[in-house]
């Protein structure tokens, strides 16, 4: 097994005091309310960070570009590009000439500085409300190693996003997925993990065996997936940091697949198909105890826990077509929640607990949609020849999924839960089955 993560480390965070922070709270803070209505993206500027020593110079521009890309990709912000800037930021602590930023219609100004010594790096930033001429919140400082420079830019992006929207960010997070290559009749599929913006791709399997459907744990350290390396589909559990791997949930004579961690990571729920019938099972890691959750003569698959771990949403064709059901996490009677036209698959509970994302097929088209947990307020966000496998950003605002054009290769896309801002997520080649991990500490 190859090395999986370049060494992660705790990013040290320091609050910078500043004169601006001592000013009284502004009456009307820089705020973007994310609502159902059409959003006019907030114009922002992020000049190249100020290098505070010569070694920092190599990162000054790159850091600001990553921040700009993150904010732009969220669909909530629009960059006023550097070539339009009148003012220059040459010192992190110098006063801001607000009128120069107002003149180019900037509302949010992000300034930063970077210092590098050896492989250690310190990144600072401040956020300013140009219209009121005030700093928003305290400046922050992150310290870490230079090979994690992108993570520091993601941390800055998350702080800016959070201060302006009032919601937590999602930029410093990773996504597990299946990297595909080769002809479709004999596809090579490798388990891979990358940053949410498609950078830092690492392969966790070598492609010799078919692998499918990775699911990241809520801690982001482990991935469950389905592998055919011994012939029939089995479940494997891999630790992304140590590379340690084991088979779990074997049931004699059964195909096991569609795993999902419990929210606390203490076990999993998965599907086992045997004798023409697919049921859900639950396994607790520590005790090895296996519990059969469904026993209907039909297919039950694609289970997903509610964030509190008390309920499971899943897909079943017990009514004759695929629909979404919810039952207790210990099994028992299930309640159908999908009643619209078409077939409903792959329910995934939002990290906020209020919505369930799903795949719907109707009239020859596939959609990613969301509904409330009682099935009401269904909203379709996408439509194509084949959209499937939704996964939630850790803040519950964005959904990533697999899209396959007719006759084309699959790739990853993201969309806002309001249905706006559909974007292709860059991957090294064809990609499928994303699983979005947590916001990293």
């Amino acid at each position, binding site marked *: 097994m190859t090395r999986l993560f370049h060494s992660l480390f705790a990013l040290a965070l320091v609050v910078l005091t500043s004169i601006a922070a001592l000013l009284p709270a502004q009456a009307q803070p820089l705020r973007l309310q994310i609502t159902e209505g059409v959003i006019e993206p907030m114009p922002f500027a992020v000049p190249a960070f100020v290098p505070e020593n010569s070694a920092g110079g190599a990162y000054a521009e790159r850091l600001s570009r990553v921040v700009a890309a993150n904010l732009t990709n969220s669909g909530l912000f629009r960059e006023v590009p550097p070539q339009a800037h009148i003012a220059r930021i040459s010192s992190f602590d110098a006063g801001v000439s607000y009128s120069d930023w107002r003149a180019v219609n900037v509302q949010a100004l992000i300034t930063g500085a970077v210092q590098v010594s050896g492989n250690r790096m310190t990144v600072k930033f401040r956020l300013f409300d140009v219209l009121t001429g005030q700093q928003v919140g305290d400046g922050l400082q992150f310290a870490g190693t230079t090979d994690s420079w992108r993570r520091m830019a993601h941390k800055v992006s998350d702080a800016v996003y959070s201060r302006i929207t009032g919601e937590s960010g999602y930029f410093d997070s990773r996504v597990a997925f299946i990297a595909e290559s080769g002809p479709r*009749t004999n596809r090579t599929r490798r388990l891979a993990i990358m940053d949410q913006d498609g950078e830092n791709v690492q392969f966790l399997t070598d492609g010799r065996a078919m692998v499918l459907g990775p699911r990241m744990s809520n801690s982001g350290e482990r991935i469950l997936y389905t592998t055919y390396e011994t012939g029939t589909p089995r479940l494997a559990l891999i630790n992304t940091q140590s590379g340690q791997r084991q088979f779990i949930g074997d049931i004699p004579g059964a195909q096991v697949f569609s795993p999902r961690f419990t929210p606390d990571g203490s076990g999993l729920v998965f599907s086992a*198909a045997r004798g023409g019938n697919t049921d859900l099972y639950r396994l607790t890691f520590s005790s090895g105890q296996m519990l059969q959750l469904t026993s209907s003569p039909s297919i039950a698959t694609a289970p997903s826990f509610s964030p509190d771990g008390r309920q499971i949403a899943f897909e079943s*064709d017990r009514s004759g077509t695929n629909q979404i059901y919810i039952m207790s996490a210990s099994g028992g009677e299930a309640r159908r929640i999908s009643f619209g036209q078409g077939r409903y698959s792959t329910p995934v509970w939002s990290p906020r607990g209020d919505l369930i994302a799903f795949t719907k097929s109707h009239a020859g088209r596939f959609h990613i949609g969301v509904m409330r947990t009682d099935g009401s307020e269904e909203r379709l966000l996408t439509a194509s020849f084949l959209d499937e496998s939704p996964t939630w950003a850790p803040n519950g605002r964005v959904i990533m999924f697999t899209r396959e054009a007719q006759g084309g290769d699959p790739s990853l896309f993201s969309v806002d839960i309001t249905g706006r801002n559909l974007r292709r997520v860059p991957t090294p080649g064809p990609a499928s089955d994303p699983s979005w991990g947590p916001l990293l500490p």
Partner: protein
Amino acid sequence: MTLTSKALLVLAGLALAACNNPRAGGTFGGGGADGFGNDGFVDAGISTGNLGDPNDPRSVAHFQQRIGDRVFFTTDSSSLTAEGRATLDAQARWLNANTQFSIVMEGHADERGTRDYNIALGERRANAAMQYLIGQGVSANRMRVVSYGKDRPVEACAAQRCWDINRRAVTAIAGVTG
């Protein structure tokens, strides 16, 4: 039979299965015209000689090419068609006469569905074919099921022609038992 030759038999069987599907509308020679030329099996230089002469009714080649090693399903269904039952009847006669072979019953789906559901559906199809063979006297001990869902199409063209041949259960001769 050595392990290696068993493995070759399985690989060759897969290549042949792909190349000799009468409904694929392609050539039988493993060329590129039907999309199988670059699937990694044909290019591996595996001879079909291991499988015997299709004119020999006891050969694996005969099973695959003359009897037909696969049955097809309608969309979202795991019910055997009349044509499928006839194929399985002939398969059962061959298997009952050639009891040295074990079988992997592969279940497959077309691409128009979610991955998880299609693995379940593929298992249903493989199980339907296997149960039918059991009903025709083939011992369950000789057979095991594997579902590939939608992820091992014989041909990928995103059109009805391919979907029809991808919804299948394939009786793969896996090797010699005992």
